[in-house]
């Protein structure tokens, strides 16, 4: 039995009939067509699927689309505004904070919340904040630098 859901994604309203078991990540990727968030595991560890639901970073692979009914969702595709990259995106680019890029959309979304909560984090706080996002390429060092650089730029 399908259920109707209405969500706002990156500022756009969407209404769809979905199976209750449809995971939010599959809804975003396969129904709405937003391929930015990725799937890297099924046990809520890797964080590649991270999106913001009502302003909170969550793992979209561990949430049913029906649970997001009525929510405001932000994905990596909605980070840049009017064609201008978000300071975190700029910083990830400048600091070489990504290699294969697969974890990057999730990493950016978590980093965004991290800086909202703590505009001037220490290296330790950044590393703790990013524990839910695995990166196999960078060894995290440039990611930490990028989050610091973005914090400085955002006036933290």
């Amino acid at each position: 039995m399908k259920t109707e859901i209405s969500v706002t994604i990156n500022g756009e309203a969407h209404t769809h009939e979905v199976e209750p078991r449809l995971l939010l990540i599959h809804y975003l990727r396969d129904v709405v067509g937003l391929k930015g968030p990725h799937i890297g595991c099924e046990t809520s560890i890797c964080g590649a699927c991270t999106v913001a639901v009502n302003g909170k970073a969550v793992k979209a692979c561990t949430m049913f689309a029906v649970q997001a009914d009525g929510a405001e969702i932000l994905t990596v595709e909605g980070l840049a505004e009017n064609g201008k990259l978000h300071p975190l995106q700029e910083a990830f680019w400048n600091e070489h904070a990504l290699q294969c890029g697969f974890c990057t959309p999730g990493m950016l979304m978590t980093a965004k919340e991290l800086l909202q909560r703590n505009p001037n984090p220490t290296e330790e706080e950044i590393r703790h904040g990013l524990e839910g996002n695995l990166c196999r390429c960078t060894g995290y060092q440039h990611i930490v630098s990028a989050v610091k650089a973005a914090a400085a730029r955002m006036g933290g």
Partner: protein
Amino acid sequence: MIPQNFDYAAPSTIEEALELLADPEAKALAGGMSLIPLMKLRLAAPGRLVDLRRIAGLREIRQDDGALRIGALVTHSEIESSPLVRSRCPLLAETASHIGDLQVRNAGTIGGSIAHNDPAADYPAALFALEAKVKVAGKGTERTLPLEELVVDAMVTALEPGELITEVIVPVEAASTGTSYQKMRQPASGFAIVGVAARLEKSNGRIGSVRVGVTGLGPSGFRARRVEELLDGTAGSDGEIREAAAVVAEGVEANADLHASADYRRHLAQVFTVRAIRAALARAS
């Protein structure tokens, strides 16, 4: 990995939810952090999910009669960052900050965690040390019981079919109380291999009102009463702390898995009991 199909309902009142949960095929869905991964691996396949998120009143934290009443749907990150919890019951806030990761803390709820009763969950250590109580609603029933009576075994609670945790009640702590949660993380999952929470008071150079809660060691979290007895009334010297901590694993059937043997867990329980008590003592005034 994809869950099996199920029916879904998102009632807006407790009464409706309890009505729906009377169906033996039904299971309550809170944050989903425990249930959804199991469903994706097809290790759980409930016929119906009753999503609690629309129910008003389950998301509040309030202070009442010397206690904090925390709604079952309050997330770990809300507990971690709540000024009320941080000032009135800092042990719970500290423990919440150790759970999983930022995204998991944003979604996972205290009620869901308690109902799931994972032996490696972080909360039980603090909740046992705080002598927490849990309010449980059933169809036409309501009861409040100490956590000790709720937890039964690994992944098993005394919740009757159709019952729902609605509230967690922890005491308001005096500012002079010292508390600490110390854990060894399972490196992959972030769960506790062993976690120990301690709260104590200090007056006239003596330790009093010690409560020690332990998680990860046994099939469920527990209160280490023998440790408390040995420590109560002592000056809290290093020797006294070690002596008390030495008995923490007595009589506990320790867990063993890929990440830690039973011996090692017993040993860690002692180490982290010492560390938690020391840290709590340093914070007590």
